[in-house]
């Protein structure tokens, strides 16, 4: 049967073709342009937004995105342990109080807590325009509280925050109670001794083996004696430091600092990464990893920038006269201190602030140690080797004594080392005095009346106008100057040897002839 095809207008045909093309499903997503355009236009006509020409593409994109139906509904949602959630869990512990026991005990209000009143201090710092935001301060405060509860501490201070490339460090300065610290010290020493014993055993075995072989000539070079580190509670190790990456994470104790580390840290300039065990790759090679470098920088910053108003601390007058060469290193709070007026504190002459941390000598210690100390062994050796030259007695290194005012600080480039500021120019009666360090940018101090505090927030680097350039490698050792005594000459070739022998024989024959002639002449 013939079904008559209706006659289609060519225009209609074009229309049908066009619609068919537009309805072609896209290979990627299964949607087609025709439906999409119609839905966009429907939305536009419904909502009638302004400037629809400008946002047309955006509408189109929105429609496309909203079409996506996720098939997650049929699948159980995975619990997304994002890092944010993980951190929040850790920090929740900060805010938890102890259970059970504490509910019975009432807090003893009279007892002094070693915890500082961080909110008050941060309020003052905020007036000066420095500090961390409030959330962070509260978290740090809780973390310090945890630290106090877990260790028996006499005094705790929030030292500051150091930025690293991957993570930051929050540093707490801590003073142990008397006697408590020794427990930790003994543990450390016991470990060290144990290690030394094991290494000695190894050396002993090796020594025996070596003795059997021929003795190689031993070099006479004795490495310069290692400057010993100062004991805890003195010099750069006066305070102990704890760090953590985030409040809520556990506090790690930083090791005591050695003079070698301080001198090395003075010669390099590296960013902190945020991981305590990261190696410090530098020239000259730094003895230790990032925790040692961090500790060295903390020591340098403390020595250079911890200041207090003049008169807050004073020397204990009951102390006996100290020995020559040793500076005083103990001070006590002045109970009669009454605070200086703010105007005096911001005087550009800087005479009303003093350092209360000892200056670190170039040697790396606070009290100079004479490296030329002769032991009994040395005396014996000296008798044997008379030719050994005696090194000159090094001159003792002297640094500014404790409690020197800031006016004695050296200038940085051609600008003063500290910038004093009043926190508010508009209301000077209640303004507080602040000091910003120009040598260690990031070190700040404030004072008002009897209160004062130091803090450091920065990257842990000193300021220098000129670029940092690493020290040059040591000069190449010179060779023994070549002279005729040690220059090798070539061995004579066989022809030369033969010629020499022939020449010698001729000479001998000639000599014999000469002797014969002489004998003959004598006989005559």
């Amino acid at each position, binding site marked *: 049967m013939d079904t008559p095809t209706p006659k289609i207008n060519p225009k209609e045909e074009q229309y049908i073709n066009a619609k068919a093309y537009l309805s072609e499903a896209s290979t990627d997503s299964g949607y087609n342009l025709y439906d999409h355009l119609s839905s966009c236009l429907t939305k536009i006509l419904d909502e009638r937004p302004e400037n629809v020409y400008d946002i047309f593409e955006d509408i189109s994109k929105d429609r496309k995105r909203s079409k996506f139906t996720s098939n997650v509904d049929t699948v159980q949602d995975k619990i997304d342990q994002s890092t944010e959630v993980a951190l929040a869990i850790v920090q929740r512990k900060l805010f938890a109080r102890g259970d059970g026991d504490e509910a019975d005990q009432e807090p003893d209000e009279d007892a002094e807590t070693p915890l500082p009143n961080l909110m008050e201090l941060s309020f003052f710092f905020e007036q000066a325009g*420095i500090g961390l935001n409030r959330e962070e301060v509260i978290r740090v405060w809780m973390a310090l509280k945890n630290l106090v509860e877990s260790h028996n501490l006499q005094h705790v201070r929030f030292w500051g925050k150091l*930025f690293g490339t991957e993570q930051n460090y929050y540093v707490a300065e801590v003073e142990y109670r008397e006697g408590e610290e020794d427990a930790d010290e003994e543990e450390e020493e016991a470990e060290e001794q144990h290690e030394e014993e094991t290494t000695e055993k190894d050396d002993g075995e090796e020594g025996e083996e070596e003795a059997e072989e021929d003795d190689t000539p031993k070099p006479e070079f004795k490495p310069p004696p290692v400057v010993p580190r100062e004991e805890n509670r003195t010099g750069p190790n006066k305070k102990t430091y704890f760090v953590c990456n985030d409040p809520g994470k556990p506090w790690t104790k930083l090791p005591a600092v050695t003079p070698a580390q301080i001198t090395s840290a003075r010669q390099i300039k590296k960013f902190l990464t945020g991981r305590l065990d990261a190696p410090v790759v530098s020239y000259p090679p730094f003895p230790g990893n990032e925790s040692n470098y961090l500790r060295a920088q903390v020591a340098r910053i403390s020595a250079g920038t911890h200041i207090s108003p003049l008169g807050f601390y004073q020397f204990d007058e009951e102390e006996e006269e100290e020995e020559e060469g040793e500076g005083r290193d103990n001070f006590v709070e002045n109970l009669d201190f009454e605070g200086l007026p703010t105007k005096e504190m911001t005087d550009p002459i800087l005479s009303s602030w003093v350092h209360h941390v000892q200056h670190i000598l170039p040697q790396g210690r606070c009290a100079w140690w004479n490296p030329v100390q002769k032991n009994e062994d040395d005396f014996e050796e000296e008798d044997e080797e008379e030719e050994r030259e005696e090194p000159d007695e090094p001159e003792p290194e002297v640094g500014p004594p404790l409690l020197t005012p800031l006016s004695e600080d050296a200038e940085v480039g051609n600008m003063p080392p500290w910038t004093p500021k009043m926190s508010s120019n508009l209301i000077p009666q209640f303004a507080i005095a602040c000091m910003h360090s120009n040598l260690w940018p990031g070190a700040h101090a404030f004072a008002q009346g009897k209160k004062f505090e130091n803090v450091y*927030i920065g990257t842990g680097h000193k300021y220098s106008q000129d670029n940092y350039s690493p020290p040059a490698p040591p000069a190449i050792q010179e060779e023994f100057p070549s002279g005729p005594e040690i220059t090798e000459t070539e061995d004579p070739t066989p022809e030369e040897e033969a010629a020499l022998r022939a020449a010698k024989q001729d000479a001998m024959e000639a000599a014999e002839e000469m002797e014969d002639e002489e004998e003959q002449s004598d006989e005559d």
Partner: protein
Amino acid sequence: GSSGVILSPEEATTLQTALVLLKHEQKFTSVQYWGKIFGINNDYYIAIGIGNDEMYDRKYLYIKDCMNWGDLPILPKEAQEQARLAKGRFSGDPSNEFEHILIKQLPGEGDEIHEEEETVIIKEEDRLTTIINDISHEAFIVPRSAYIRTPTGMISKNRTFEGLSVTECTKLGQFLHFREATELPKKSLIDRANLDKSLDFLDSLEEDVPKGSWSMQFDRGCGVTLLKSLLWPGYVFYHVPHTSSFGSVYYGIGEKNIDLPFML
């Protein structure tokens, strides 16, 4: 906040007032607080006034005591080169002059090289302009797709910018320098074919030399992304993922960290 510098309440309120007044007086489309440069005696607060075109129509202004804005001059290139030579901190006084001694080597008689010292005087204002331009040129960044280039060539904010996701935030390539693209034309054609012309008209951070000159950190877990520049220490960029809030500020002494390669 967590980078250690905050505005004291007094500073913040005076700045707020001053910025609003600035926008009104100079008829800018919007005004942003750019940052603060520390000087020895005084600090400078810098603001940007933005006209119609986000990128090209910018004007920098500064104030010292939070009340009176001063224009920063626009310098020709040679003057900028000279201004970069000045070392040392800003003093806080715009009319202060730096002296820089240039040692020029001129060929003298025969083989000798005759050294002459030339003292170049650089005004602090000029130096300030140059530093701000440099920082904006090298450090100012925005998330990708936050700005769109319209067909007329103008650059405007993308109203549908919904923020980057957390995983996108971890990639340096999602952040772009907000300046005339210098690296883009150097890319190969294959790379360029995949780019979206309206979104990718800026250089991304991935090509920054040396590698690692940006430190990326997350605050509050992954609540906020912070990007700190190690080349210009003090520049911080923040972005809250999945929201359209982002911003940057410079709080520093205005000196480039040339020791960066040694420090990484």
